[in-house]
């Protein structure tokens, strides 16, 4: 077999993985499926693919890390922008120029956020896309050359133009399917993640999801229906779920929290079920505010809730239950198996436990790079002493070493080991 040139592989991976990224997946088959499904609305599909390719080129030209570009991390936000613009605007030269500019803005925001968030281990999710799309939407109002598309208004006409009577007949047939409302909304919401809004796309994605990951599929159901039930329970925006498919936020929240940032477990499922009502509240709240400026929400509620949850869980003082995924394998199953494997192999030693070298309560009197003596080679040293209620380190008169609380106390080995050398001829420093 002839060798495929590296550059082709780079583009192939970067493009395909951008689609998977949206679903927290790097499964090749599932990603290709998503790419294909995005063409069910061909305008969205084309515009999306164009956006991905253009952003990958921009990233390459600008000299960004190709290893990161290849994971799709830099381009999936632009992909979403492309999909949205393909739906809302008529194709024209001006459209493509604005698309490229919008992509560029999105890329800048993505890189900035990726760098800023990497040290704090928080995801940025689709925030760059949302900011990018707002820039485009707000500016397009004053750009005469950019026209809102009328597609969708005359849906059947377009189908006729596109695929003739066969397509129209198929469309009518599908509309006659008697899908229960709750399931209908689930499928449409699922398809809305790649801006499709129809049950064909939804059904294909659902089957793809099921094949790719049973955990992800079950999470999508639990996430969606817990959010749905909450809306029902508080007599909230069910009709909104129906009309705008905003419920896809529930599904993304479920995929993100249930098996991607956290190792899947009964607790992570429970967390999903408890988080979707939060998402629902945020949809209502943000919708009200952004409605004033006629700005769409898209996946903003999901992004904010997941970022908030992950941030909080990463800052736990003691990690009990809800294990974070330490090394991302981009699949709930793989994350789970790797976690089990780790627990089996290392039991409690997922981290190498070292203990402080003493009993009881001591004070750290000088820490890392303490500035007094912890400089240079000694910058990672810690100093300890003991203080009483009054802050003193000794009992009166404090004239000899033995007056000091810490003098003569046992010093422990911080972990099991072998004695390498013994030094016992260093005199005490007199006070």
């Amino acid at each position, binding site marked *: 077999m002839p060798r495929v040139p590296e550059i082709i592989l780079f583009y192939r991976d970067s493009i395909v993985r951008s689609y998977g990224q949206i679903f927290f997946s790097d499964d090749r088959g599932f990603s290709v499926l998503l790419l294909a499904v995005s063409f069910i609305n061909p305008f969205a599909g084309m515009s999306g693919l164009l956006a991905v390719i253009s952003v990958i080129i921009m990233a390459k030209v600008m000299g960004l890390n190709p290893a990161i570009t290849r994971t799709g991390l830099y381009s999936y936000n632009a992909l979403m922008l492309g999909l949205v613009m393909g739906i809302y605007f008529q194709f024209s030269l001006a459209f493509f120029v604005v698309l490229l500019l919008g992509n560029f803005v999105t890329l800048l925001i993505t890189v900035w956020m990726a760098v800023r968030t990497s040290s704090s281990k928080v995801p940025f999710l689709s925030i760059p896309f949302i900011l990018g799309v707002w820039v485009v939407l707000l500016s397009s109002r004053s750009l005469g050359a950019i026209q809102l598309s009328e597609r969708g208004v005359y849906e059947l006409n377009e189908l006729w133009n596109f695929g003739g009577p066969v397509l129209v007949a198929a469309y009518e047939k599908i509309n006659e399917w008697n899908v229960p409302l709750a399931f209908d909304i689930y499928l449409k919401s699922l398809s809305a993640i790649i801006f499709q809004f129809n049950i064909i796309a939804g059904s294909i994605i659902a089957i793809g999801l099921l094949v790719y990951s049973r955990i992800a599929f079950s999470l999508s159901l639990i996430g969606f229906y817990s959010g749905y039930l909450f809306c029902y329970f508080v007599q909230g925006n069910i009709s909104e779920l129906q009309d705008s498919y905003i419920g896809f936020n529930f599904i993304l929240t479920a995929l993100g929290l249930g098996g991607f940032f956290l190792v899947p477990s009964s607790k992570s499922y429970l967390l999903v079920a408890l988080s979707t009502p939060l998402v629902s509240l945020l949809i209502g709240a943000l919708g009200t505010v952004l409605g004033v400026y006629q700005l769409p929400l898209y996946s903003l509620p999901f992004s904010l809730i997941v970022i908030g949850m992950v941030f909080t869980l990463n800052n736990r003082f003691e990690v009990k239950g809800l294990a974070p995924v330490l090394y991302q394998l981009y699949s709930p199953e793989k994350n789970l198996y790797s976690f089990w494997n780790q627990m089996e192999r290392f039991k409690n030693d997922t981290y190498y436990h070292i203990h402080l070298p*003493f*009993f009881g*309560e001591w004070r750290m009197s000088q820490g890392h790079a303490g500035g007094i003596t912890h400089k240079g080679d000694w910058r990672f040293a810690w100093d300890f002493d*003991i203080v*009483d209620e009054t802050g003193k380190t000794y009992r009166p008169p404090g004239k000899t070493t033995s007056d000091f609380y810490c003098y*003569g106390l*046992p010093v422990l080995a911080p972990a099991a080991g072998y004695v390498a050398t013994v030094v016992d001829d260093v005199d005490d420093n007199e006070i």
Partner: protein
Amino acid sequence: MKKLHYERPIIQRLNVGVMNKFGTKTEYAPVTHVDGNAVKGLLAKYGSPLFVISEKTIRKTFRDANRAFKTRYPKVQFAWSYKTNYVNAVCNVFHQEGSWAEVVSGFEYQKALQNGVSGNKIIFNGPDKSMEELTMAIENNSLLHIDHLDELYMIKELATKSKKKPRVAIRVNMDTGVYPIWDRFGFNYENGQAWDAINKIILNDQMELVGLHCHIGTFMLAPSAYGLAASKLSDLALSIKKKFKKSIQYIDMGGGFASRNTLKGSYLQGMDLAPSFDSFAEEITTAILNAGFAKDELPMLVLETGRALIDDAGFLLGSVISNKRLSDGRRATILDFGVNILFTSFWYDHKISPAQEFSQYSEDSVLYGPLCMNIDVVRENITLPPLKRDDQVVVHSVGAYNMTQWMQFISLRPAIVMIDKNDKPHLIRKRETLKSIETEEVLPAYLKDFKL
């Protein structure tokens, strides 16, 4: 101008000779205030005599002791020995500091429950526990420290009736090189009684053996004795592990650390003699850590320290009733408190300071209490400045055992005041009245009337 303090003249023999190594004038430096409160003011407000407890001193002493052990051993638990001082305010200071309760009678047990200590944090010691008391303790999941075989059989009998499995420990007595051995309490280590009792408990399976206890004596001046005791208890625990594959949850070393009082007949002052908490802690923890327990099977170390934690926090304030010259020419001073409320003066030479300024002159004298009994001697011999009627004195380190062993004999018991950490006094026990003594009395009707 302030009226000068009158001091009666004294005649003192001029002492020529070598200086003695103890000096002379240490004891009677005046102590006019206790934790910022004037002695005069306290006595005026609450009456004389008066017990005063310094909350600050309790907390500081407790933290010193706690630190000494916790910086040497991973699991340490103090249990406040109620008999040492069971005034509720005092107990609760200890409970606030994290102490469990150690009781030796049904009455103390109820006191601990009433103070809010949960049953599983009460240690029930002592040779005298009735069926009712044992039943109550079993139902509350308390820790029963068995003193003798008869008690063991009683608990066994109760265990068959109760749904709860009693949590027990045995008290072990042993030779630690300090005599006399307190072998009247518990089971002896050397002659095998203790091992025998342990076997009886574990094989019976109706009780759960959770701990091993000893209390080798009180006012112990030799930390090494504790080291020996701790290694003997550890040996027992390890033998249990070996034979029954069962880990003991705790080792209770009892109390007994000396306080800084001076025992009668002691050549040195208690202040200089009493070992520090650190030296007791060093002996005990070294013995347990070196005994050979697996790292995660180290037993919890329980301490029932009493006097060493409370003695220094207690003061007795009183007043001079009179002065007299005894037949042999010695001076005698009569105070308004005696052995009735200062029970510990039977075995301590308490440090007593005048509560007002004096000149440099001093005189040897005997201090008597107010009782009409010859035994009422507070100090057989003390060097004090010449005191006169209504002068006031402060007795130091009286926190342990006095407020529990005091007698309502001839006179009524005084009030107790606790001075909090902001130097504010709180009345924690009222001065007794005739009524408090007579509430429990019953006078048969036919004895009501009489003619004289």
